[in-house]
């Protein structure tokens, strides 16, 4: 099971291996289990709001029950946490817990759930604690090579809990980082470990769902930070960014050893969205084409105006060589990965199986725009704030930043649309 993960992975809790892996799962152990469809049950003891906002999801559904720890303590009725949980489990939870699956105890930071895991074991269940809780899981990064060689390496650096993907393109000892996420250690460690100098940092667009690590990574490494100027204006505030950045132009090239990365302006998800093509082989699509779905056009508050632009941009991408490997900026489910765990597929393949591209190719422009507007997920108010942070208009403290980013990204359209009927399943 562990063999699926490459050795280069990064988490916030990398320090030591747990003594007994069955009783304490670090974030990386959890990811391996989620990726290999291992069956287990979750007892999540956070408050109900946090559970609703952010829960564990795998390649297959993860069965879970949520009982806040303070309810177990109060209703269990004992002075000590451990005794209360044992009493509560025996009286109120026995019917809800499976006896044939391991039970993972989950809380916010991993301390309370340790009591719960112990109480479950004392009650006769096989139980483990999620080390560091949902905080550690939310801040865990994994990295996989898409291609690795002396001439060219591409690493896909993911934040699995949030469904965010970023990339390191390396050639001839130099690296370009695309869409780096908020924590810099995965990029600095990987570059340091491979003797790479980070020369350029590129954001494919002004992100709404997560805080970009771009400006900070550029400042830290002396690299240049690039952004399309249209995305250096906050779309709601109509205020210019205060972060230092260099303009990306349509067609602009970035040398990567013997290879060339070229920017393609594809407005739609944002006005300044760019895709990056590496020769005729790889296409970093940012938030345009994902594996199973396509990006939503409404996060700038101008869905009706931007939807037709989005359609035109997607057609522009579909005109590229079909053998190119698409490397997207997000996933909505771990199940979008191929069997090696990589989120990648050829453009020709996606023309056949991507929900949004299927509608694009089948419908008129009007029909496609209607599909976009009818498939918009709920608007997330935090996204307006996150765009302010990414433009340098707001500077949150660490705990505020973590709160803004809580939960999985919602940058893709909703799934389950029935195109011909114009409604949702």
């Amino acid at each position, binding site marked *: 099971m562990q063999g699926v993960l490459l050795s280069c992975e990064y988490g916030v809790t990398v320090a030591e291996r747990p003594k007994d892996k069955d009783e304490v799962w670090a974030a990386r152990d959890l990811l391996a289990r989620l990726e290999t469809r291992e069956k287990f049950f979750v007892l999540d003891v956070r*408050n*109900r*709001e*946090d559970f609703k906002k952010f829960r564990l999801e795998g390649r297959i559904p993860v069965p879970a029950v949520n009982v*806040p*720890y*303070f*309810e177990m*303590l*109060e*209703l269990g009725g004992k*002075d*000590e*946490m451990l005794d209360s949980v044992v009493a509560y489990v025996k009286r109120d939870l026995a019917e809800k817990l499976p006896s044939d699956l391991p039970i993972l105890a989950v*809380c*916010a*930071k991993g*301390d*309370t759930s340790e*009591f719960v895991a112990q109480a479950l074991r004392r009650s006769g269940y096989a139980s483990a604690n999620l080390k560091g809780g949902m905080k550690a899981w939310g801040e865990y990064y994994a990295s996989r090579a898409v291609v690795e060689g002396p001439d060219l390496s591409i690493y896909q650096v993911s934040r699995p809990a949030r469904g965010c993907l970023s990339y390191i393109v390396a050639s001839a000892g130099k690296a370009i980082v695309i869409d780096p996420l908020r924590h810099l250690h995965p990029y600095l460690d990987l570059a340091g470990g491979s003797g790479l100098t980070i020369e350029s940092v590129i954001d494919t667009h002004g992100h709404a769902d997560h805080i970009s690590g771009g400006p900070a990574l550029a400042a830290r490494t002396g690299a240049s930070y690039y952004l399309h100027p249209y995305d250096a204006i906050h779309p709601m505030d109509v205020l210019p960014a205060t972060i230092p950045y260099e303009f990306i132009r349509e067609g602009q090239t970035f040398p990567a050893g013997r290879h060339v990365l070229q920017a393609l302006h594809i407005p739609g998800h944002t006005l300044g969205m760019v895709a990056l093509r590496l020769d005729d082989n790889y296409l970093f699509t940012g938030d345009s084409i994902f594996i199973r779905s396509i990006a939503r056009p409404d996060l700038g508050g101008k869905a009706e105006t931007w939807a037709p632009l989005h359609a035109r941009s997607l057609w522009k991408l579909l005109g590229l060589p079909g053998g190119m490997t698409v490397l997207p900026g997000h996933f909505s489910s771990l199940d979008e990965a191929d069997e090696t765990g990589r989120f990648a597929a050829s453009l020709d393949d996606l023309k056949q199986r991507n929900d949004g591209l299927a509608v694009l190719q089948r419908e008129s422009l009007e029909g496609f725009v209607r599909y976009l507007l009818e498939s918009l997920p709920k608007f997330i108010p935090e996204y307006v704030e996150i765009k302010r942070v990414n433009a340098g208009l707001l500077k949150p403290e660490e*705990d505020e930043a973590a709160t803004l980013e809580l939960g999985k990204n919602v940058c893709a359209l909703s799934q389950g649309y029935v195109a011909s009927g114009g409604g949702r399943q």
Partner: protein
Amino acid sequence: MSQAFDKLLDARGLNCPMPLVNARKEIGKLELGQVLKVMATDRGSIADFQGWAKVAKNMQLVAQETESTEGANVYVHYVKRTA
């Protein structure tokens, strides 16, 4: 704007669930109507004390405050014994 209280529980530096577990023990030692002031540094304690107050039968959450001392936030909860 400080709230009156009868007993102080300093749970600063303690991780979840200890601020709440200890507060629950202390409430049992109060007279009816007396107020316990709990100081905690765990930010999660704000939502947790609110959730706890909804299920607990012998207490009421009277007030919550965030104090900032030396750059660090302290989350203060006032809990009254009601039964």
